[in-house]
């Protein structure tokens, strides 16, 4: 098996300069969605843009989580937010057109040419990451800069990070580095420092995080879950997709989901579809 390569994000080093955000947009040639009526900016008492979530033209962003408690006082926890490139991706499991593939080095690759814009993945994703782009009728998300990696380069976000908070390398090495760093942080003022992404969702994710506090303080799900119907889809529906899809469409439960999808598609799926 090819050695896994991944991003490590160290929240204790991030200064939220958002150089990664612009580097990502530059590398992927994503337009700024600048709508005068759109409030954005400091809309929620902090500096989140886009209401703190990715969208069809924003594959990654820095989230600003403001917390306060009597012991630590005010803390501002920054989080780099994008596709987690799960080891066992729910998006891949539910995609009826096999638009998703898991590259041997770890990236969850989404082929827009195969995508039919059905948006099942947007519901299945435990992090609510894939977003529907209306004018191409496809779903988009972070690519882990697979085309840069293929050329021997690092992903744009890691390349642009001045304080060295975002790194790219072999997953086993970065995991080792993260363990040492967390140990250091725990001894130096951050007793709840932790690694995120190592074992989450069972097999872990191919994005690793060093958090200075518990995941909920960063707006991350403490125990992310892939929903049951996704497992059902992967194990039962997909192998027989050819004949089961029309059949399933007749079923009331699935038609309910479908109608939600269609409705969403018409009004552009803006927010994360996940509760």
């Amino acid at each position, binding site marked *: 098996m090819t050695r896994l390569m991944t991003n490590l994000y160290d929240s204790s*080093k991030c200064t939220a300069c958002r150089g990664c955000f612009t580097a990502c947009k530059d590398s992927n040639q994503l337009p700024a969605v*600048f709508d005068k009526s759109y409030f954005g900016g400091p809309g929620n008492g902090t*500096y989140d*843009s886009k209401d703190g979530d990715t969208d069809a033209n924003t594959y990654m962003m820095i989230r600003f989580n403001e917390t306060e408690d009597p012991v630590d006082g*005010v803390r*501002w926890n*920054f989080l780099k937010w994008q596709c987690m490139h799960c080891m066992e991706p729910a998006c891949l499991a539910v995609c009826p057109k096999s638009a998703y593939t898991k590259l041997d080095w770890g990236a969850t690759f989404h082929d827009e040419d195969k995508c039919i814009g059905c948006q099942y993945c947007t519901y299945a994703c435990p992090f609510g990451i894939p977003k529907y782009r209306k004018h191409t009728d496809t779903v988009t998300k972070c690519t882990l800069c697979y085309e840069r990696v293929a050329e021997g380069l690092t992903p744009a976000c890691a390349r642009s990070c001045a*304080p060295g908070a975002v790194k790219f390398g072999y997953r086993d090495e970065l995991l080792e580095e993260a363990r040492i760093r967390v140990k250091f942080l725990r001894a130096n003022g951050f007793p709840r420092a932790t690694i995120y992404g190592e074992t989450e969702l069972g097999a872990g994710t191919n994005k690793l995080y060093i958090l200075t506090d518990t995941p909920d303080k960063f707006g991350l799900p403490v125990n992310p879950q892939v929903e049951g119907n996704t497992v059902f889809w992967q194990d039962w529906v997909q192998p027989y997709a050819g004949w089961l899809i029309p059949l399933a469409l007749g079923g009331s439960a699935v038609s309910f989901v479908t109608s939600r999808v269609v409705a969403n598609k018409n009004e552009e799926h803006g927010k994360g579809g996940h509760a």
Partner: protein
Amino acid sequence: MVDLKNTDVALIMGSNMAENHPIGMKWLGEGRRVRGTKIIHVDPRYTRTSVVADLYCPMRSGTDIAFLGGMINYIIQNKLYHEEYVKAYTNASYLVADGFDFQDGLFSGYDAAKRTYDNKTWDYQYAEDGTTILKDPTLQNPRCAFQLMAKHYLRYDIDSVVKITGSPKNKYLEVIKLFATTSAPNKTGNIMYAMGITQHTVGSQNVKSFANVQLLLGNMGRPGGGINALRGENNVQGATDMALLFHIIPGYIDSPMNTAAQKNLLSFVKAVTPGAAKVPATNMAEFRAAVAAGIPNSGFKINTSKWVVSMLKAWYGDACTEANDWAYHYLPKRDAAKNYSHIAMFEAMYKGEIDGLFVMGSNPVVGGPNANKEQAALTKLKWMVSVDLWLNETSDFWTFRAWERPHGGTHHTETFEPKDIQTEVFFLPACAVYEKEGTAAQTGRWVQYRWKGADEVGQSKSDLWIVDQLSKKIQELYKGSTRPEDEPLTKMTWGYGHGEEPEPINVGLEYSGYFVADGKPIAGGFANLKDDGSTACGNWVYCGQMATKPDGSLLYKPQKRDNKDNSKTGLGLYSNWGWCWPVNRRIVYNRCSIKPDGVTPWEGDADRVLIHWDPTNVSDPTKPDVVGAWVGDDVCDCAKTAPPDKAVPFLMRPEGTGCFFAAKGSFKEGPFPEHYEPWESPVKNLMNSQAVNPASKIWEPDKKGTTADYPYIGTTYRVVEHWQTGALTRTMPWLAELMPNMFVEISEELGAIKEIKNGDKVIVSTTRGDIEAVACVTKRIKPFVVDGEQQHMVGAVWQYGFKGYATGDPANRLTPHVGDANTMIPEYKAWLCNIRRA
């Protein structure tokens, strides 16, 4: 900046370093990695810098002197200072003149009517020769600088200070104790500051307070130490070096005035050379002899005449001779009765005293204080030339949009219609920084050459081209004139290239200096400059940046790119990367990096020794009898062959030492920093009965807001997503997307009082004007408890204007025309305002 990694404790105060100096922050991160650097952040707001700091302590804007005064008092009272350093390298032991006094916030010599001081008592005690300063090496004499300082700061006890600053007492003590650990001989501490320190009526004294702290702790002149001004633009250091200021000529020499006392070169150099006023010379030859013989208490500035004459030689060439007083009469002279600072210039413009204005790389309609008035001042001009990448708010100040005010309101402001504005505006498109060549000098004085990265767009031109053409055209217009008053133009040397495009290297050669006889660069540095017309040098501090290669071509040292660290102990000097003024010295005052004996490292600090005394070294092979020299990884900041007891560490001071007591004219408002409230403050001064700095400059006394109408503290700042006035970044879609709206930040407590929710449109007002903004109600801003009462703060980003994608009202429509006593820097950082829902 690399040196930041050598520090044990970094105190970031009045700076949002992580946002505004992200690359510098990287080196503090490296310090954390290699030596466990602790970072302290002191600021009125919890910012992105606070996030990465180990310790954050809030402080009310404008109370830095109280905050640092308490620290100084604590260090002295608990004997935490670095005693050996203080005794050897500072003026702590110097006895101060008996006439010097301090009572209730006023030093001796105050003239209330003129709001100025006569500083003649701010001096030392001298022996009978009139020049030898009396000292008490035991620091016990009550008139020694150390004891006077201790007495001055005794009033700044912890409880009194936190009453003023509103800092939580436990956090404040933590800050003091942590930073004071750097007085240990094997530790150094670094202070980093920016506009949060300087943009006050006491800006200079805020920095002086830093100097007192760092001298007490023995942190100056050592790796990982020092006081570091974080520059807001990548070449602001270069701009001040080249005297883009109103009061100096290149190389930090006071600019000449039109007074009788400075009527010729001799009288001018007597005035600007410390200690030279008493020199009886009646002509330059006699003065030259006096300099050669040595002038007591002059310091290295004894050489000023050489720098001035070499500069005049560079500017006026053959027309600069002994016979015509070295062309001194060609130099423009300041009117002694006038003030030429930014505010004063706009006040004069407003009164119609100025006809024309060049605005280059500046955007005062957004960035100037009292921006409403400054915009109105532009309407009084006959013409204005705006040089920028594209039309910014200042270039377009005359348009309808430029005069729109929130809700159509004209609160305290005049508005104009384009048809009524007679100012003729010319716009010259300029190249962006990556589209032109030249040098930039950064925060650490490294001068680095930058090659062109992209071709210019359209007809845009480099600044050098624009200035070169302008000068040539003006000279052409005066060609053939025989009038003596035109000689400064007709006799001026000007030639920086062949054909139309000027060459930066030719400019570099002029300010590095050359021998007049053969035109060869003065590679040896400013020690070779002469005041006899044999050398020409545009800027003495840059002397030596140019040398000759073996093939005879020019070696322009800022172009060097050797990324090998020449420090044997890994300090990161990188002496062959670019060039550092003066004389490629990477860390100034480095004589202090070793004990007074010059050979013994500070205990446990052998790895941070920059230079040491080698008693057997012969530094100049042509003078074999001069034995003994300072050697090491850095260029020594003391006389190369002066033995340790003679090698003073602070060469540029007349005393040769670091000064706790800043004698004579060092500062306009006194030898020691004293706490005064900002011009507009919600509270009375708890330290003395003076309200504002008694020597500060107030232009519009009638515009002073009071708490009855304007109860809240206002302050301004930047965000990382936008740069300066936003002229560049608000037109970049990706950056505009990140910070699309002008916003102000308030605490949840103030939000509750004023019924303002997140995202609400609000109006912020002062006596100068009002602006509309989006409210950001946040936990990161807290009210300050000052003398038992809650004081609220409104924080405004000042980077918005009406051009570009991300737009909003300029926060500087709120800020006052009040200046620091020494620098005239506007008090952008603390004023009074009110806020309400729009």
